[in-house]
């Protein structure tokens, strides 16, 4: 019980440590599964599990109420990236219906020092981000789909993450008397 109470302050961690730790995680999963699709799925799942917890941390720091539209949601996600990865993605490419947008990353701390080998072109290296966004938004009653459109690791100029709102989940009613 000797935890330091100052831990609540946003702690600065060297981003190189994060990218290397994440790199070793990815390479371990690559060793465990030979199928790249399976690896993508595992990374997404890890991200999802992180997201459902991370959202509480985010909300307790920002005390933000529930979002009323996707534009608000996009800004919150942008803010979250600034808080947790100190990068500021640009929001763009809104779908006319307003339920789909892109996050453009100039740089991505997760993929620093990373080069994809030729035989792994299917690998979604940063799939953990997709899972994280999906998990976090699900906790605030938003069902979204999230995928990569462009990836710097695959030779694109920027990394582009697409987020699409599928539906709003309904609030739960209390369980009836049995």
């Amino acid at each position, binding site marked *: 019980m000797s935890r330091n109470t100052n831990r609540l302050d946003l702690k600065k961690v060297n981003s190189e440590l994060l990218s290397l730790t994440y790199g070793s995680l990815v390479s371990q999963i690559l060793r465990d599964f030979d199928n790249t699709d399976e690896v993508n799925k595992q990374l997404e799942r890890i991200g999802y599990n992180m997201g459902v917890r991370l959202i*509480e941390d985010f909300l307790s720091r920002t005390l933000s109420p529930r979002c009323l539209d996707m534009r608000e949601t996009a800004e919150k996600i942008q803010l979250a990236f600034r808080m947790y990865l100190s990068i500021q993605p640009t929001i763009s490419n809104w779908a006319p219906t307003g339920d789909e947008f892109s996050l453009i990353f100039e740089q991505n701390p997760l993929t620093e020092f990373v080069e994809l080998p030729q035989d792994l072109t299917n690998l979604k290296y940063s799939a953990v981000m997709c899972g994280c966004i999906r998990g976090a938004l699900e906790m605030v009653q938003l069902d979204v789909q999230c995928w990569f459109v462009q990836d710097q690791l695959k030779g694109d100029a920027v990394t582009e993450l697409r987020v699409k709102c599928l539906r709003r989940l309904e609030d739960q009613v209390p369980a009836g008397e049995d």
Partner: protein
Amino acid sequence: MTIYNIYIFDKFGTLLYYAEWNRIKQSGITKEEEAKLMYGMLYSLKSFTAKMSPIDSKEGFLQYRTNKYALHYFETATGLKFVLNTDNASTGVRELLQQLYAKVWVEYVNRNPLWVIGTPVTSDLFKAKLDEFIKQSPLYSSKSI
């Protein structure tokens, strides 16, 4: 001023945690029934206030008072609900609940990988920290009536 008890519910109505300090009168029903009754009442009050509100309100139901005690309600965007009973003289309970969420809940429950989301909290560390947090707050002073 004093704090009586706290209920923490998740968005599915599961009672995640209950603790009491200076509660003098018991409800006479089991904890499970009491929690169900409490959650049902909160749910009704929430939809009642939302429907009856003449203006668009962001936060909805915040608290109610009787002539003996006040019930304070704080809900996060993820549907986590904190319900704290205090006496009528207490002020600033909302801030207290927000602090409790950020400093105790997120820190000692949410960041504990052994806690499975949606299950009652059994962590002793959380129990101790919550107790400490409540007892340190200016609202708490064990006044025996």
